[in-house]
């Protein structure tokens, strides 16, 4: 698939910002960094600026530094759904720590509630400590990659387990749902030993316990048919993704070869703002953090616009991770996104458009309908 010349801009909206010391420096950080009021403001600002989608980071284990105790990402996304009308909402759900059936039904409900703006950011990486919380072995390493592929597969199966027109509301016959248009998924994962749960309590951690899902889903097929599945390249097979996230542009070609329709690069930024250089702000934040923090891009809004314009044709989008939302987001909203729009470099999400529409991704035909059509 060739890259287009538009660049989608995504934004991470977790907490007070991507830098673990953000809550200490930012203007509003004496207030709740993790509560709903800040979330509403941040997502509204991003939507008004024409951001294509926001991601909601999450973890079942507290971060090494910074505010602990954030809210469930799906709940946050569902909360802002009725407050927005154009922006994509992409919560992180880790496949190793949530029942696939619940993942599928909650995300499908998010897609309904947002009229087709839902996505799934597939969590990756080991979750130390999750086993103790969840009372079951949690896969790690290569096993985790296999389990992730299984979970994404079955969630996608469940999203197709209702045909689009399964809700018939046939008043004449009294049938509300046509059961013939619902399908079992009958999925059995890989893995060894006892299925995940108390029965596998004796199983060593890091072991991949098998699971099965019969289906069908309890939620009808959602507006997008399949939500936009976003995952880090290398953690989910490209063919299961709609959007592969890469850490650097060097990895973009590889992710594309792996089958991902769209490739988006992560870019952590600390911008010149309020009369201070980004580099100085960054140094101050690092001083406050007390733990090593990966480097970010620092500089002015004008320079960032140049960087972003240069990404066109290399990747399909960029996910910005501002160090401090209170400080960096206003600069993005006021100076960066308008300049990109003037340059016709970014799409303008329209009210009523689904996230797939905005991203230029087709709505997948339901596999059961597609199969019937080829018989």
């Amino acid at each position, binding site marked *: 698939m060739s890259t287009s010349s538009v660049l989608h801009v995504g934004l991470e909206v977790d907490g007070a910002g991507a830098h673990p*010391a953000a*809550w*200490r420096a930012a203007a509003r*950080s*004496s207030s*709740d*960094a993790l*509560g*709903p009021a800040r979330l509403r403001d941040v997502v509204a600002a991003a939507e008004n600026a024409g951001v294509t989608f926001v991601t909601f980071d999450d*973890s*079942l*284990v*507290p971060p090494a530094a*910074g505010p*602990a*105790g*954030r*809210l*469930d990402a*799906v*709940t*946050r996304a*569902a*909360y*802002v*759904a*009725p407050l927005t009308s154009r922006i994509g909402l992409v919560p992180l759900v880790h496949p190793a720590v949530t*029942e*696939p*059936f*619940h993942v599928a*039904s*909650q995300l*499908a*409900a998010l897609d*309904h*509630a947002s*009229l087709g703006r839902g996505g799934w950011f597939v969590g990756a990486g080991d979750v130390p400590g999750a086993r*103790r*919380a*969840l*009372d079951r072995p949690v896969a790690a390493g290569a096993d985790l990659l296999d389990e992730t592929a299984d979970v994404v597969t079955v969630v996608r199966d*469940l999203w197709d387990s209702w045909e689009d027109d399964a*809700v018939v*509301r046939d*008043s004449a016959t*009294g049938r*509300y*749902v046509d*059961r013939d248009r*619902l399908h*079992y998924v009958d999925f059995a994962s890989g893995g060894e030993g006892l299925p995940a749960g*108390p029965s596998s309590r004796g199983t060593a951690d890091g072991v991949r316990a098998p699971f099965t*899902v*019969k*289906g069908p889903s*309890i*939620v009808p097929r*959602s507006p997008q048919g399949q939500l936009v599945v976003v995952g880090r390249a290398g953690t989910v097979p490209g063919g299961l993704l709609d959007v592969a996230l890469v850490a650097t542009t060097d990895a973009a070609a590889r992710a594309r070869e792996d089958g991902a329709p769209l490739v988006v690069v992560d870019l952590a930024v600390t911008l010149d703002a309020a009369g201070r250089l980004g580099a100085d702000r960054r140094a101050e934040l690092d001083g406050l953090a*007390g733990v090593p923090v990966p480097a970010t891009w620092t500089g002015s809004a004008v320079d960032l616009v140049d960087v972003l314009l240069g990404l066109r044709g290399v990747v399909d989008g960029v996910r910005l991770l501002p160090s401090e939302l209170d400080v960096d987001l206003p600069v993005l909203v006021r100076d960066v996104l308008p300049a990109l729009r003037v340059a016709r470099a970014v799409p303008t999400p329209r009210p009523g458009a689904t996230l797939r529409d905005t991203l230029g991704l087709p709505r997948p035909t339901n596999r059961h309908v597609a199969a019937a059509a080829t018989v």
Partner: protein
Amino acid sequence: MSARQMRLGAYHTVSGHHAAAWRVSTQVNDTESLAQHQAAARAAQDGLLHFLLATDVLGEQGDPVSPGFQPRLEPAVLLAALAASTEHIGLVGSFSTTFSGPFQLARQLSSLDHVSGGRAGWNVVTSFRAGAGDGFGSSDLPDHVERYAKAHDVVEAALALWDAWEPDAVVRDRRTATYVDPDRVHRTEHTSRFHEVRGVLPASRSPQGRPVLFQGGGSDAGLALAARHADVVLTSQDHLPDARRLYRDVKERVAHEGRDPDGVLVLPGVITVIGSSRSQAQDVHDRLLEQVDDDQARRRLSGILGWDTSALPYDAPVEPAPATTEGNRARARLLHARAVRDGLSIGQLARVTAATRGHLLLVGTAQDVADELLAWHADEAADGFLVGPAVMPSGLRRFVRDVVPLLQRAGVFRTSREGRTLREQLALPPLGTPRP
């Protein structure tokens, strides 16, 4: 306001509780439409109702699909979206303890309480349909005893996880770089034959401390769970003397657990058909009844009773029900009692079930409905009601416009809101009230 106050919840649907409601409604009911859910939630809020209950019944979509099955939006997502669309109404969701672990449930409910500013409630259900486990690699529904044992365990683990965050644990001290005071967050160590949960819930203490706990299982095991943990007991009762008995039974069980009986509310479900005259209400009810599909109604009845009634002719008498069922025990008992009391045949009982699934059915003018509710309330058969209009959205609008003022005039229903959180609005005792 000195009289004992009535608490009201909306038994939330977008299409009404009667099995045939969607066939007569003036609105094309779309259970996936958030806009229709928002309209219903706002109507309930405008009527000063205390909460709405979003149900979820795992296994309804199995094969054969549960008769009358209409899909729902998953409650955790629906209620979070409604939190943003409403300001005051309590947001209660059914979540099954049989197919979710305490950690995830506790986290999502705490998150709902946060985004709603303290309006979350959890209707603790155990699932009763045979196919409930189809999504979870569990081919058989665990038996009744096992389900309730697990329910106790999940609730207790969740309570421990919520309680582990002290009220002032989030300090946000910028100078000392302390967002959370580690001395005020405790590790939970919960070990049982079902779960071993060790750790800290990654969601700080929510505005209510924990969601208000609702429970709707009416079997002996269900009532035991309610007596120990519930703030609100939802029941299904269609006969005043029985409802009075159950009410007393619940309060006695609560007292037996060392809790204050006045601090636990008993709310029966009630299905309403309200007309401008009695005959008009009866017409609507008759029209609904005409639309009932007898085969579907029979399958629905069989599902609740837990045994297959399909071979019996319409006029067959209702046989003595088996003493126990692995399904919905209390409801099966209630329907059987109803059939015996009113001399209903199996076909007639199926029609009643299509209309009410066992709940009290009130058909009449607003005054008729208000009088009946007032009588049940005054007679100590109820602390309030879970109001399920037979047809939506008109039924809820009518209840709010015509019945609520009559209850207010009688001095038993609030005319303004006091308190912010659901717990405060329901006038439940504050958390931390000593327990055995």
